[in-house]
């Protein structure tokens, strides 16, 4: 009898412990990532506190804790953390920001599920290309009242930068940084190859010519790094071609100009072998920092790494073709997920307002090498005398938006453009066939 009791008791204990274990998981939602329940637990007390004392909050200065997710995993993330820490210490509104940095992949998996289950952070910082898909799923707060509430002068910000945070005329994000692709070149390698180290190539022909001269397989040295996992809109645009027109949903791939550009690109990769075959972006970054790459097109985030490795480099605008020079623009914005409560939204506005002051923008630009887009800051003598920043500002003038604000953008990239460039650059198909195939794929995507 006693034995039986013990066994029943033990089984009961086991069942209960298993059930509670599962209960916790269930609360987070099946699709919620593993640490979502944790975040929720952290958040709930804070929310409850804020709920209870909402009314007297401003009077008594109750503390507001904001959850903040972003994708700044590089060295710029350390600088961002410093700025946020400093804000936590100095702000007079008793706001504390708790910051979580995660890779973009991970954020894109967690955030939609978190918004759907009401466990999203109070504000998020991510690439502007994400804004449109989130808005089309009604997952971001409309913050068009931002200028009125905070009194930030909208006219002081460059129009093309502001444009990136708008969808259908409504504001969904506060601009944080803006960038285009630049052409980096290694001055020491230029000098060794007998080229003028102070003169970057200006045209596609010059780019190809220099790239061949700079390539030396014996030394494992390449003239121009061209990773295969990205798109090269700058080349298509330079010759007057394009991929699609987001405003009319038209497919623009199948054109003479594109064939010409892709033939040039294939010749460069397959016959002249100026780039290591099939490398990824991060691998190209590493080789550039190791001084194995003569020229490379990338964003401002290379600057700190190159400085740290002591590479003697220059920055120039992307090269021009028969139709001019262009460079794909991008940037990051602060956004507020749907369902963030009003008091937290206003607190997030305060931080965004803090970011948009010239002091912070100046610190960010100078320490990271990002272009300046505040009109008053552009007049600042210190900014005007900064060699890197003035080179960048010049290279930023040719920025052009590529499918930004278009909800099909990521599908066009992943299903059409990246495979197209990969096929052309590895020589798996002749440009004409690859383009025809890509054009059909584009039709399928646009038909959705």
């Amino acid at each position, binding site marked *: 009898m006693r034995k039986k009791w013990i066994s029943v008791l033990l089984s009961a204990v086991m069942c209960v412990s*298993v059930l509670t274990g599962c209960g916790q998981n269930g609360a987070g939602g099946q699709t919620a990532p593993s640490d979502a329940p944790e975040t929720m637990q952290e958040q709930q007390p804070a929310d409850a506190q804020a709920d209870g004392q909402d009314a007297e909050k401003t009077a008594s200065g109750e503390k507001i804790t904001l959850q903040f997710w972003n994708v700044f995993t590089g060295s710029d993330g350390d600088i961002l953390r410093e700025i946020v820490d400093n804000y936590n210490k100095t702000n007079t509104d008793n706001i504390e920001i708790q910051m979580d940095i995660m890779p973009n992949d991970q954020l894109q998996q967690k955030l*939609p599920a978190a918004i759907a289950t009401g466990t999203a952070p109070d504000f998020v910082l991510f690439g502007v290309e994400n804004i449109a898909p989130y808005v089309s799923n009604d997952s971001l707060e409309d913050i068009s009242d931002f200028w009125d509430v905070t009194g930030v002068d909208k006219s002081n910000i460059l129009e093309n930068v502001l444009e990136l945070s708008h969808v259908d005329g409504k504001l969904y994000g506060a601009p944080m940084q803006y960038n285009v692709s630049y052409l980096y070149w290694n001055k020491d390698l230029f000098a060794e190859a007998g080229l003028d180290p102070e003169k970057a190539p200006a045209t596609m022909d010059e780019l190809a010519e220099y790239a061949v001269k700079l390539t030396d397989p014996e030394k494992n040295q390449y003239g121009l790094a061209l990773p295969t996992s990205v798109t090269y809109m700058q080349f298509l645009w330079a010759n007057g071609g394009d991929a699609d027109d987001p405003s009319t949903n038209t497919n623009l791939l199948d054109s003479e100009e594109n064939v010409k550009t892709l033939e040039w690109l294939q010749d460069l990769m397959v016959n002249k072998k100026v780039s290591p075959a099939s490398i990824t972006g991060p691998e190209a970054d590493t080789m550039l920092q190791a001084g194995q790459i003569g020229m490379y097109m990338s964003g401002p985030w290379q600057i700190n790494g190159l400085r740290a490795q002591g590479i003697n480099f220059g920055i120039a605008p992307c090269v021009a073709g028969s139709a001019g020079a262009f460079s794909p623009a991008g940037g990051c914005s602060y956004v507020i997920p749907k369902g963030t409560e009003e008091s937290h939204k206003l607190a997030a506005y305060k931080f965004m307002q803090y970011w948009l002051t010239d002091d912070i923008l100046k610190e960010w630009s100078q320490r990271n090498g990002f272009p300046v887009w505040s009109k008053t800051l552009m007049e600042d003598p210190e900014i005007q005398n900064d060699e890197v920043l003035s080179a960048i500002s010049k290279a930023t003038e040719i920025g052009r938006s590529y499918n930004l604000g278009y909800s*099909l953008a990521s599908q066009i990239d*992943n299903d059409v453009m990246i495979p197209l460039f990969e*096929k052309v650059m590895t020589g*798996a198909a002749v440009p004409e066939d690859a383009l025809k195939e890509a054009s059909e794929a584009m039709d399928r995507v646009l038909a959705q």
Partner: protein
Amino acid sequence: MTESKVKKRRYAAQNQKSAYLFILPSMTILSVFVFIPLIASFVISLTDMNIFMKDVSFVGVTNFTRLFSDSRVSNATINSLYFTLLEVPLQVGLALFLTVCLAKNSRYCKMLRSIYYLPFVCSMTAIGIVWSMLLDPNMGLVAYWLKQAGFQTVSFLKDPDLAMPTVIVVTAWKGFGYTLTLLAAAVLNIPQSLYEAAQMDGAGSFQKFLHITIPGIWPTISFCIVTTTIGAMQMFDQAYVMTQGGPLNRTETVVQYIYDRGFQTAPYDLGYASAISVYLFVIVAVMTFVLRRFVLKGGEDADA
């Protein structure tokens, strides 16, 4: 008479009750993490649903008709089959060969078996990263050795034709130690007297292997083949870490494509991703069924 029968039945019923109680914990875990998601994915595959879970609508078999005209699904299926057909024989064959060499309980054999087992306990992600660094054509150690030896640099993971074989070899390298351990345990259980009798009949070592060792461990071999095949059809992490499905989607497996549709490419089409996982589920179920019949039957033949 009847009383004792009733007693017996009651006793059995009680026994069963506690048996159910013992199953309950693992049943609960299995239901929450296996059965419920399985049924959920069947249901989701019939809907138009994205990761934001707004405006979910029932669309019938649309996702499945779309699946059969999607060239990336057929490409991924071929890649998965290619991987399975090469990886499973390589891993099981290598393990079987080494089993014959190492099926002694000497200190040397035990040590070697433990060493071969080591990669199996490491995470596939860590192993993938280490191997992609070693094999990198620009800064990898293998490329450096090849260069020193006077060969041309080969970019194992970047070459469309070499990428999948490389992933296969790395996977087999990681997994064969586990298969080896299972097979060695089975071989050590074969009664020594059988070998002695065979020797008296004048059998050579190859004949002993073919007629005693193989039939003796056939159940274990078939277990290894079936589990390795199921694992291989669901291959994801090694290709995700080492090649990201490239070059030219030549290493993109079915699971990777499911992940890509559901979580990587907007509009994060969970309905379509679930349809592909149902499709994979059917393939794996059929393969397992056929394989079990085939290898079990093979075992009977070998016994006879």
